[in-house]
């Protein structure tokens, strides 16, 4: 039996034991219960000044118990989602949960350390069986060399890296998950000018899938391009956004407000299912099955089998993203989007890979059809206020479009809009689908998310530059 198989079996046992223990107590008002457990290892650190300056190996594990509890004598949708978790599972988790549900178990006996002797110990993945640090160091040196090869002006290369292997068990289902995520920051200097470049490649596969010199060169190019960039303009302009990471536009403007906990909070898309919310040629789905995407999984963190969810079909809202709890409150089916940063965190409705279906237009035609505007070549993170639909995203490498041609580079800037208005202003969708990687934070939990889609154009977005 392999080590991974043995750990998988133990994780299943931990989940079964916790559920069995809770079930024997027959708690009142419980609508649904679930358990999860994980064991993982990772290597993470930072590479600067041509060498690794921070590096650590980590092992992690933990277990959680969750339930949806309907309070007696209150409305049908008046439920509470309970989540208790610990790095070392024990009967104390069950006792704590029962206390929360109104049982009589004293909280003073909860979570005694150490939890040995409970029979629920989760074995760790052996850290040294993970990625070879020698190979990792050689890989990072190649990234560094690639970045510096872009131009002598590249003065610094800073690479954050993490390589993660996890065995995750939700109920009886066990999934082996991998993640490689790099954050390559480059700095270029020319006299008093300072410019930065950012590139965040990621995969649910292995480090060997990347070509390190090439990705370094791309990160270096992004910084060098910024040298001599002019201030971004201020005002409303057409914006052409390159596909892949650029789909962060839809991640913020459309999909966060479609997460069903935000619907419960009064998102701008509440009560809009079946109604048009976007231009007719816009079809958006969430798909955790996209191979290689950092948002890939076989089942979500509540055990729902992964499958694509069609959110917007030809402009019409068709579905929401749900977790088990929010699906119960809204009377909707779970969509395999219950995700957590680690088993210690409660699952929330989260995106996996946001996909914009390809359209008919060639990217060069979209550009040539834009008289004046902004070309967002490389896009950073974003944020949205779901209840108003107001969102922003960062353009790290942008250019002015004049007479249908890409011209001057502009300094990094933020682009803003209101999702419920902007989706209707997508007037061109390209045929050049690309895949990007990002990390998304919500309620303190950061999870990897994929972004897949082609170049698109929005007829008008607010560009928040400084050149008035």
């Amino acid at each position, binding site marked *: 039996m392999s080590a991974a198989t043995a750990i998988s079996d133990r994780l299943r046992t931990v989940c079964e034991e916790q559920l069995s223990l809770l079930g024997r107590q027959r708690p009142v008002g419980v609508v649904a219960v679930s358990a999860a457990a994980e064991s993982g290892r990772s290597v993470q650190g930072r590479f600067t000044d041509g060498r690794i300056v921070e590096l650590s190996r980590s092992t992690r594990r933990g277990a959680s118990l969750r339930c949806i509890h309907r309070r007696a004598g209150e409305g049908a949708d008046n439920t509470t989602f309970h989540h208790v978790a610990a790095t*070392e599972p024990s009967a104390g988790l069950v006792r704590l949960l029962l206390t929360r549900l109104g049982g009589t178990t004293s909280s003073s006996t909860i979570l005694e350390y150490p939890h040995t002797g409970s029979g629920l110990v989760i074995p*760790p993945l052996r850290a040294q069986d993970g990625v070879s640090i020698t190979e990792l*160091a050689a890989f990072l040196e190649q990234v560094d060399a690639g970045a510096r090869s872009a131009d002598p002006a590249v003065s610094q290369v800073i690479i954050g890296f993490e390589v993660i292997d996890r065995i995750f068990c939700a109920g009886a289902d066990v999934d082996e998950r991998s993640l490689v995520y790099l954050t390559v920051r480059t700095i270029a200097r020319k006299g008093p000018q300072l410019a930065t470049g950012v590139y965040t490649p990621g995969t649910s596969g292995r480090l060997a899938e990347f070509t390190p010199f090439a990705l370094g060169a791309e990160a270096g190019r992004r910084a060098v391009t910024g040298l001599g960039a002019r201030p971004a303009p201020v005002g409303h302009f057409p914006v052409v956004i390159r596909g892949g990471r650029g789909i962060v536009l839809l991640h913020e403007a459309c999909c966060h407000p479609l997460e069903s906990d935000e619907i419960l909070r009064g998102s701008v898309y509440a009560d809009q299912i079946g109604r048009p919310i976007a231009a007719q040629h816009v079809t958006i789905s969430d798909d955790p099955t996209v191979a290689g995407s950092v948002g890939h999984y076989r089942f979500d963190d509540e055990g729902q089998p992964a499958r694509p969810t069609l959110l917007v079909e030809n402009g019409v809202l068709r579905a929401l993203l749900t977790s088990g709890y929010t699906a119960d409150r809204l009377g909707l089916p779970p969509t395999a989007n219950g995700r957590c940063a680690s088993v210690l965190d409660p699952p929330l409705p989260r995106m996996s890979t946001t996909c914009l279906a390809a359209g008919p237009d060639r990217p060069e035609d979209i550009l040539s059809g834009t008289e004046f505007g902004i070309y967002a070549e490389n896009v950073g993170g974003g944020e949205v206020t779901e209840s108003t639909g107001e969102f922003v995203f960062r353009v790290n490498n942008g250019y002015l479009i004049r007479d249908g041609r890409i011209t001057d580079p502009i300094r990094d800037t933020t682009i803003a809009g209101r999702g419920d208005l902007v989706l209707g202003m997508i007037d061109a969708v390209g045929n050049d689908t690309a895949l990007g990687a990002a990390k998304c934070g919500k309620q303190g939990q950061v999870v990897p998310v994929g972004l897949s889609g082609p170049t698109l154009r929005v007829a008008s977005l607010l560009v928040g530059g400084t050149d008035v």
Partner: protein
Amino acid sequence: MFDLDSAVAKILGSAAYVGAECEAWICRRVDQNIIVDSTGVTQWSSSAASVSAVTVWRDGREGCAVVKGDDLGASAVEDALSVGAVLPPSERVARQFSTVRCDPSARCDPSARCDPSAGAGYDEDNPEAVLSRLAALARCADMDIELCASLEHTQTAFGETGGGYVEQADQLACVQARIAARGRGPAYIARQFIGRTLGDALDAADRALGMDAACRTVDILSGEPVTWYPPVTVLLHGAVAARLLALLAPSLQLDAIQQQRSRLAGRLGDAVGAEQISVIHDTTGVFTPIALAFDDEGTPARLTRLIHRGRLDSVLSDVRYAHQAGQTSNGCGWRPAGGGAVTVGPRALLLQWHGPHMPPPASSAEMTLEVVHANGMHISNEITGDFSFGAVGVIRDVRGCARNAGAFTVAGNVLDLLADVTGAVGSPCFVRRSGAIYGSPSLWVNGLTIGR
């Protein structure tokens, strides 16, 4: 009970067995989160985690390993040695705690410390009272309010080969309010109230600039937005100014200066801001809600003046980078909540204004644009200091009449902004971001570009 000093001793013993010197950092953490809206408690989550970080030195090489779980000792030491074996040689830098021998019970405010045996922080003494106060705050007739109350209790121990050992307990509470207008135009702001206990945080929410003020602001934001701006003086609400301070922090780090990631490199002693501005880092609990005995390298907590009356006085440092610069650490070496290597960073940063606190529109004819909520500030450029974020705000005329200013963008450079602060209003507003807290009063500023 989980015995921290025994756990540290076990790790050090495992290292000694294989001929390695060692530092062991262990953090036991209990988090509790309760989300409450007008219907009651919608989510209640708790987690207990043990995290250990082990750093070893052998044959002139340093390695680090992190274990999340109670499985301590030999495997972690082996993992750390395997890391060190492939890294370049690295000398061990002496920590300060081994000679300082700080006494956590003397440095922490005893009344603010958690009793680790009292349910490990899962339930405060009277959880019903806390839930009742949360429910009362969440029930405002005209607003949709969701409150997320979080309580983090940590016990941290740090020991090294040779006998140095320190231990401390800490607790921090935060109530985050999401306030939206009910049934009117789209309007929303978020506010955080931070304290040592949930009671402290709820008290902050009850104060004059707490929930009532936030609800009044949302009420204004739900009105029809103005279509034209007259000349305005810009006031950044404390919650917005504090988030801008978070953007300044990376430029004030010694590692960033040594690695050419900071525009403040080589400017120690220079004027970098308005004369009435100071920026301090305080983990002693005097000026901020963070009261610690030591950082994650055992360096005693202290108050550090970073910018004093406009001049750059010092920068944040940890042991490694301070040693490289021929200095001693000022106690800013921190590990991420889940463990990992020590990095330089802030834990409790505060902007202070030494001038009078008053509303100063330069001209009585000018109106005020108060920026009350920001979107996307975290995605600004921490290296150049350039920022551009989405915002909503309120326009007030000289008589105090307020109208919704709608949505707009605010762009500028945070380092330039330090010189463009012309006044301040009110007590500091604290916000939490990435494990650190940042505080600032509301600031009058020039030089920003407002886009709409």
